[in-house]
């Protein structure tokens, strides 16, 4: 049965130009897909989208849709103009957790495509901004059928609402010489410990884990996650002086001075007279710039681990927050190392679940109660690496100063003894 196609003059303009057009893709589903259900659903979707373009308004409303046993993972969408566009009046998205690091075989992608066109609209995105595969466009019964099918062969829903969200990690050790940790393992250890908190939203607000293998932070973890894990190292960076000299020879001394030496944020680099590189590793902050410029010559050191920062988020409600260093360096090698990192996440989430206000991100709670109180709450000692600089304000009671100072020296000597 031929469908009556909506007239879409504005959307049609998005089919011109060299960049691939999402409108052409949706039209293909409308015009060429063998299933009439998909033809009419995408036709009405285009109709509603054209209506939005004409009126400059959105027409989707949220609601409550879930699969059996879960309370989240579906983004429900009901059309406010469903009478005019009935075939897409329910157009929910299923958020599905990708494999850590976003690796896929084409075989698996085909299997997902087959399941999706059986139940949904045929539109999918790899990936949304939280990191999920977004299967866009299913009516309420189809969400359950599609989930049941893909859940049987290894896929699970991600988070939506006030819960632990789907995590993200960079390509990392799979294909990057900068990688300082097993990002995939850290990613899965963290998020898969909290499946209950992912699927059943019961926290003050969202909580995100993101893992970047080095301080280049390709996953944007510091700015966009509540619990950011960044690979780093604490011994000397490795320098292949022959490669440095080759690079100087190719690019010239001035280029190296202007683009490497003087760009070091802590002035830890110098170019020797013989064109070798001098590195003051005590001053190096692992910013990654010199390694980025000379990836053949410079490499992270051998004593690798992670830095953990807490509380990154965007504006709502108190303004943008970067994550704050909580753990300056942590080894991540043995199973015990991973377990203790997961335990730290549990402690933080428990404390925040107990003390956070409704709709208050972890970083906002820290802002409200103060970093020192947060540290007390989770049982972590203050460390100068947590700060850009010590306090500026003299408005503080110092009754406990002597005890705190004594504890600091005790901890220092304990650490020295442990280090042998």
């Amino acid at each position, binding site marked *: 049965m031929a469908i009556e196609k909506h007239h879409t003059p504005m959307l049609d303009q998005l089919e011109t*130009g060299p960049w691939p057009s999402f409108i052409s893709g949706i039209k293909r589903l409308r015009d060429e897909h063998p299933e009439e259900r998909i033809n009419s659903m995408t036709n009405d979707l285009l109709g509603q989208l054209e209506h939005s373009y004409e009126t400059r308004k959105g027409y989707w409303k949220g609601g409550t849709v879930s699969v059996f*046993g879960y309370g989240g993972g579906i983004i429900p969408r009901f059309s406010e103009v469903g009478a005019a566009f009935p075939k897409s009046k329910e157009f929910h998205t299923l958020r599905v957790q990708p494999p850590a690091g976003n690796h896929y075989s084409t075989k698996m992608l085909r299997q997902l495509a087959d399941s999706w066109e059986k139940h949904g609209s045929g539109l999918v995105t790899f990936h949304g901004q939280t990191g999920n595969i977004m299967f866009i466009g299913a009516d309420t019964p189809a969400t359950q059928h599609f989930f049941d099918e893909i859940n049987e062969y290894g896929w699970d*829903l991600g988070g939506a609402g006030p819960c632990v969200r789907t995590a993200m990690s960079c390509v990392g050790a799979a294909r990057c*010489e900068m990688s300082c940790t097993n990002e995939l393992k850290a990613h899965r250890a963290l998020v898969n410990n909290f499946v209950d908190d992912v699927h059943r939203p019961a926290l003050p607000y969202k909580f995100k884990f993101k893992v970047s293998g080095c301080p280049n932070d390709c996953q944007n973890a510091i700015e966009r996650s509540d619990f950011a894990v960044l690979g780093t190292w604490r011994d000397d960076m490795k320098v292949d002086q022959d490669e440095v000299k080759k690079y100087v020879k190719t690019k010239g001394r001035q280029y190296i001075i202007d683009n490497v030496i003087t760009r070091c944020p802590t002035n830890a680099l110098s170019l020797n007279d013989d064109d070798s590189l001098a590195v003051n590793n005590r001053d190096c902050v692992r910013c990654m710039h010199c390694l980025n410029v000379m990836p053949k010559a410079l490499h992270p050191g051998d004593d690798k681990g992670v830095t953990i920062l807490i509380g990154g988020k965007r504006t709502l409600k108190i303004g943008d927050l970067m994550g704050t260093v909580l753990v300056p360096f942590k080894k991540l090698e043995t199973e015990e190392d991973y377990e203790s990192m997961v335990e730290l996440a549990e402690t933080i989430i428990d404390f925040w679940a107990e003390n956070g206000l409704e709709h208050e991100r972890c970083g906002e709670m820290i802002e409200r109660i103060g970093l020192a109180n947060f540290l007390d709450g989770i049982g972590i000692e203050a460390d100068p690496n947590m700060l850009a600089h010590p306090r500026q304000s003299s408005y503080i009671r110092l009754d406990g100063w002597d005890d705190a100072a004594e504890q600091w020296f005790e901890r220092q000597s304990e650490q020295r003894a442990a280090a042998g």
Partner: protein
Amino acid sequence: MAAKDMREPIESGCPDPWQYMHPTMRKNFGQWKYHEHPRPGVLRHVAYSGDEIWTVKAGTQRILDVFTLRKLCDIGDEFADGFVHFTLRSNIEYMVTEEARVQPLINALEEAGFVVGGTQNTVAMISHTQGWLHCDIPGTDASGVVKSMMDELIDDFRNATMPNRVHITTSCCQINCGGQGDIAINIQHTKPPKINHDLVANVCERPSVVARCPVAAIRPAMVNGKPSLEVDERKCICCGACYPPCPPMQINDAEHSKLAIWVGGNHSNARGKPTFQKLVAAGIPNNPPRWPEATAIVKRILKAYKEGARDWERVNEWIERIGWPRFFEEVELPFTKYHIDTWRGARASFNSSSYIRF
């Protein structure tokens, strides 16, 4: 559906990627030595074992229909061992192990209409939100804005001619799911919400809506004999935070929801600490289907950055070096009192020195 038909979910969480990873990646996991940039859109990684991975990166329309997804799989099967990797910005990457297989793969992708590029110092694919296609609170579209902009910026995606990488983001409301970027194009509402007082009591959990307001401008009120909410419009900053939990507080407006452009968001630690983006332009018309006014400003910023920045400088570093007054001069944008921060911590953004460039 009757309860007996209900199936218990298998709470498997995040899948193990090992099973979907290219075998050369598995073999050399954590053992990579260095990488090179043979050409834009292509990376060459060399492992200590001597193995190589040649990666070809391509931009897509991001909202993929199953035909396109299968086409991408066909290309992967025929030219690239049947494995793919997706980047943070929704580009697709194919991996091959010999240089000879790179060009045929590039040809196949380009012939199918995909765009090879996006590596190194290119303008990357715009990371974006859902917009009118799927979001419940959008002030504009996302995919359409991105398609329009990428049509104009495609040469900068294909060619690595910028001083450093450029990340562009768009967001269809002020929550800014698109995230921080070297250049961010976001909705900025300019008028307080219009409240449908007949619906508030039935739809909204009033205390949580009151709590949502960042400036305490919302209070409970009786309007037309019904419990509702009212907004102190002198306090209201038009952020739209009340709209998601209370749809009768309509913030989106065809005329008064404008676009704003922010610059200097940079999440890398390289050379300097991560930075948040800063407002540079506002009041830009929300003009579907092509948003030419916003694109024109983005192109002006990119042109000034390309001409004025030094190698490796990201947008924020370039501006820090030349100073904000010169930035506004170079991109021919007005500087207004609205550029002065009024939020907590604003003082830290004032110039408390005699550092002035003439």
